């Protein structure tokens, strides 16, 4: 049960930050949408017209996973770089 409260507290914190820094949030979703549009039209132009529907389905799934992976990696990278600059890593070694 304590794990539920832990996840809930962290989700709430993320939600508060998304809401509080709205321009950042909008910019993030806009980037996601623009990349999606670029991929969608890219498949239509470059891809095989016969398999366009299947390709788009794959494209959407890939896009979601790619975006999540990118977000996670960049977040981890950013946090590590930030904490390394602040000297936190030296503090816990």
């Amino acid at each position, binding site marked *: *049960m*304590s*794990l539920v*409260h*832990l996840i*809930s*507290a*962290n989700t*709430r*914190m993320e939600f*508060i*930050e998304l809401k*509080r*820094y709205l321009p950042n949030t909008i910019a993030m979703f806009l980037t996601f949408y623009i990349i999606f549009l670029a991929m969608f039209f890219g498949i239509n132009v470059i891809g095989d017209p016969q398999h366009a529907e299947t390709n788009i389905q794959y494209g959407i799934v890939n896009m979601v996973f790619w975006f999540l992976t990118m977000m996670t990696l960049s977040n981890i990278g950013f946090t590590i770089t930030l904490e390394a600059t*602040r000297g*936190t890593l030296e503090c*816990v070694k």
Partner: protein
Amino acid sequence: MERKCVVQVEDLSKFYQKRKTKEIVKAIEGVSFEVYEGEILGLLGPNGAGKTTTIKSMCGLLKPDEGKVKILETDVEKSRLRALNHISAVLEGNRNLYWRLTVKENLEYFAGNRGTRRKNVQSRIEHLLNQFDLKKKENELVSSLSRGMQQKLAIVVALLADTEVILLDEPTLGIDVETGYEIRELLKEIVKKENKTIIISSHDMPVVQDLCERTVIINHGKVITNEKVDNLIDLFETKAYCLSLGEELNKQQILQIESHFPIYEYSDQKLEVTLENDGDIYFLMDILKSASTKIEKIDRTTIDFEQVFMNLISREENENVVSSSN
């Protein structure tokens, strides 16, 4: 009545290896002490003495090479999570809080991180915010708070966990006199009312003298003193007097003072004498009376904890020099 032992540090040792030279450096060696329920203990020492290593080992952030730390009989190394449920820490600096969240959101977030339901901590949050006079600031972002307010909030976060032991690293660093005093009084109140155990690491000796019942002083990775603050002050207390004279002493008087009082200082009609026996004060008066020297003021020189600390450290340094030369 015998007090319950809350924290036991037994023969703690930690060694580091230097990256470039591969030389083994001792951080702490054989550090042992106990902390009792309802006690405020000061963990002191100069920079690089081994305080932080001891604190990190107590929090489970560092694995000691030898020895163990027990918090309420739970071994920190063997059952880390269970032991950490009894201890909360406020480390130096302001990385303990989320600056982008408000005061209340921070408290709710940290309560959730400890696995507590948000609704269940509301009354405790209200109580602590009122106690620490942060109620008016509950909806303000932490980034907009003053350094003192942030420090108070960090202490509230530690108290919210309702653990038996609270570890404070430099709780009054960079804080103005008024807020520092306020924090000290609040900590005393918490210990008195809630019977918490507080371990303070600080370089601020007046704070230590005012707050701590007992101190453990570490130097060169070893415990050099584990004693009550009052006992240490008594130990180093000297019967020193500072006399402001209305006129200069004559040569005869100076010679007499020199021969009877080995520790004395005289300049600009000010005489500072350390008396070895209670009766020495009468002898000093006789010397002054012999030339009818006018006495304008007599002050008893008292020793504070800062001087005690300096004496202990320099005594240990001298002993080290002697033992290494032998």
